[in-house]
């Protein structure tokens, strides 16, 4: 009898431990449309490899609600295994001591991430001042500096895609004279900053951009070039319609799709709106980079992997990191999301022309020193500095502040938050 009981107990224990395996709890806000569909690919992959996926979706406010939930979990000492965190914020969390000892680095080394990623983008995902072990995995690269134009509107007015900012202004003047809203824009702080950084890279050049918005040099921020950048912003503001303040980006994209407006300056997620409306690139709409000297503003979405002592979760983190950087997920996910794969060896055959161009441009930009991180999307600076820059840019764009005042206010705001 005793033996049977012991046998039963052993069985009970072994059977529970046999359920154990790679386990992961993922906090994310990809719950709708293409993003959810793409994430499902990852979940299925994970399950097929014997893992158990605990989903923790938190929607609302483009990740705001998820950030609140994440902080609450970390403060309570129970961080999820992985969450959507990107750019310098990865380092900020590392400095709080919640990321070490970097479980996924062994996978990164054995899979050879260093050779699969552009060195600049790889550095973003390494903890300890961007040079230590990997602690996050990239899933995509968004390009920020795109112009999305309605082809019918451009053709009817005899316009082609501008290659300089002067051409862009001339095209906008022509559209305005024809009674069309030239520039579809949503006046929200991050959208103002998105346009600003494209203008800064284009008018100031790649080195100016790096000195001002990556290194935050005071002299650069107060320079004549910054004044010129603000001048161009003022011009662009004149091309918007009165309903622009507060408008969501996708509503602005809708204006281009319907032909009410000529063009929009927005990251490549705007393409999803065109696709959803059944429009195809080259026929209904055109995409081209904003004028610049081989510049490329990147924004990479990543997942960070927190410290955990549970061996099952450690195994889960390794498995997830491996799958996330896998060719299959990188391809499928980015087909859905409009961006391009973060790893550079994924075949681009199934992608559309805009994505193909983005993939080709990133390689040239990388070689010519034009590959620069977007500050408006939290790739160049942490959240505090991003907001310091954004506040002034949006204040200038929505007021009659002079360009010189704006450049000085920008420098002051940066210094105050150093």
């Amino acid at each position, binding site marked *: 009898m005793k033996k049977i009981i012991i046998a039963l107990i052993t069985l009970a224990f072994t059977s529970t431990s046999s359920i154990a395996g790679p386990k992961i709890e993922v906090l994310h806000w990809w719950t709708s449309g293409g993003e959810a569909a793409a994430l499902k690919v990852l979940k299925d992959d994970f399950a097929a490899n014997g893992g158990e996926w605990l989903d923790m979706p938190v929607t609302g406010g483009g990740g705001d609600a998820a950030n609140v939930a994440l902080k609450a979990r970390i403060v309570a000492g129970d961080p999820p295994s992985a969450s959507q965190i990107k750019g310098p914020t990865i380092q900020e969390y590392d400095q709080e001591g919640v990321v070490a000892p970097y479980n996924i680095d062994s996978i990164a080394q054995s899979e050879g991430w260093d050779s699969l990623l552009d060195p600049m983008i790889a550095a973003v995902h390494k903890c300890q001042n961007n040079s230590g072990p990997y602690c996050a995995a990239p899933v995509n690269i968004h390009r920020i500096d795109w112009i999305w134009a309605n082809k019918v509107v451009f053709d009817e007015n005899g316009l082609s895609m501008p290659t300089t900012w002067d051409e862009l202004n001339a095209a906008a003047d022509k559209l305005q004279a024809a009674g069309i809203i030239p520039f579809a824009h949503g006046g929200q702080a991050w959208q103002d900053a998105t346009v600003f950084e494209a203008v800064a890279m284009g008018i100031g050049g790649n080195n100016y951009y790096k000195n001002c918005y990556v290194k935050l040099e005071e002299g650069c921020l107060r320079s004549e070039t910054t004044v010129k950048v603000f001048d161009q912003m003022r011009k662009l503001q004149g091309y918007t319609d009165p*309903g622009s*303040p507060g408008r969501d980006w996708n509503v602005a994209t809708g204006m281009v799709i319907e032909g009410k407006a000529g063009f929009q300056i927005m990251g490549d997620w705007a393409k999803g709106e065109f696709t959803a409306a059944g429009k195809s690139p080259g026929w209904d709409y055109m995409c081209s980079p904003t004028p610049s000297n081989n510049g490329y503003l990147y924004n990479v979405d990543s997942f960070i992997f927190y410290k955990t002592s549970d061996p099952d979760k450690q195994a889960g983190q390794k498995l997830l990191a491996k799958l996330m950087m896998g060719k299959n997920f990188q391809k499928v996910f980015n087909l859905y999301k409009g961006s391009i794969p973060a790893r550079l060896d994924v075949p681009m055959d199934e992608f559309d022309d805009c994505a193909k161009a983005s993939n080709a441009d990133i390689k040239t930009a990388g070689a010519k020193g034009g590959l620069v991180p977007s500050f408006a999307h939290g790739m160049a600076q942490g959240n505090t500095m991003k907001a310091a820059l954004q*506040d002034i840019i949006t204040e200038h764009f929505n007021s009659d502040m002079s360009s010189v005042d704006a450049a000085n206010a920008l420098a002051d705001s940066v210094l105050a938050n150093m």
Partner: protein
Amino acid sequence: MFKWLEKNLPKIVMAPAVGLIGWFVYGFVLWTLYISFTNSKILPKYELWGVGQYVKLWASRKWLISVDNLLVFTALFLIFCIVIGIILAIFLDQKIRAEGVLRTIYLYPMALSFIVTGTAWKWILNPTLGLQKMFIDWGFENFTFDWLVNREMAIYTIVIAGVWQSAGFVMALFLAGLRSVEDEIVKAAKIDGAGLFTVYWKILLPMMRPVFFTSFVILVHISIKSYDLIVALTQGGPGISTTMPALFMTQAAFHKSQVGLSAASAMMMFMAVAAVIIPYLYSELRRENAR
């Protein structure tokens, strides 16, 4: 045993509630106060740092704008809510027909949350969707009403939406106050030859002192805490022209990795509310004791 229970039952029943409020309200107020003296960035830290966050706060352009906005908003919100509330209450007090229906109509906005109010007014006031477009479509080609997207005027659109929402509530308070006045007083005044205006201006409104006080306290704390209305209506824009302290606070904590600064701004708001509520409680309690 039974007697002991009988004697102490109220205390036992109240204990959990007192404990929970003590911890989750007053405990966290103290926690926030402590955090405001630390250099917390993305997550709370516990090493003391001094008053640096307060220095930073009062040097911040955005905070100063939000304090300005708060003063403008609170003043106008108070004045318009109370004036409109009183006028509506006096009109309804005239023993008119269908009073119940009208009262419900005026009070109804109160049933909506500020998020809904904000979203509705955002559409009404948007120059390309709402009022302005309607008037232009009707043929008034030069009609402009673009306060929502005008940096100087946007704060007043928040006042409009806030008053629309809360004036009915003030009306209900005053109506209840007017109804509680005994008829004899009014009749006596009328016998003495006082007109309707004099009755209200000289007799009834001065008697409404406690109602003024109540409305004042309720409206002021609504306006200091106002967050959802701004998020829905302007998101602090155009630019940062309609930022308010509560919006500043959430942005600092959750968007800007400035938990310490956010705690400092929360303490400033707390002190502002306390400055209004404590004298009120003091005067109310004193009067009760005097009775």
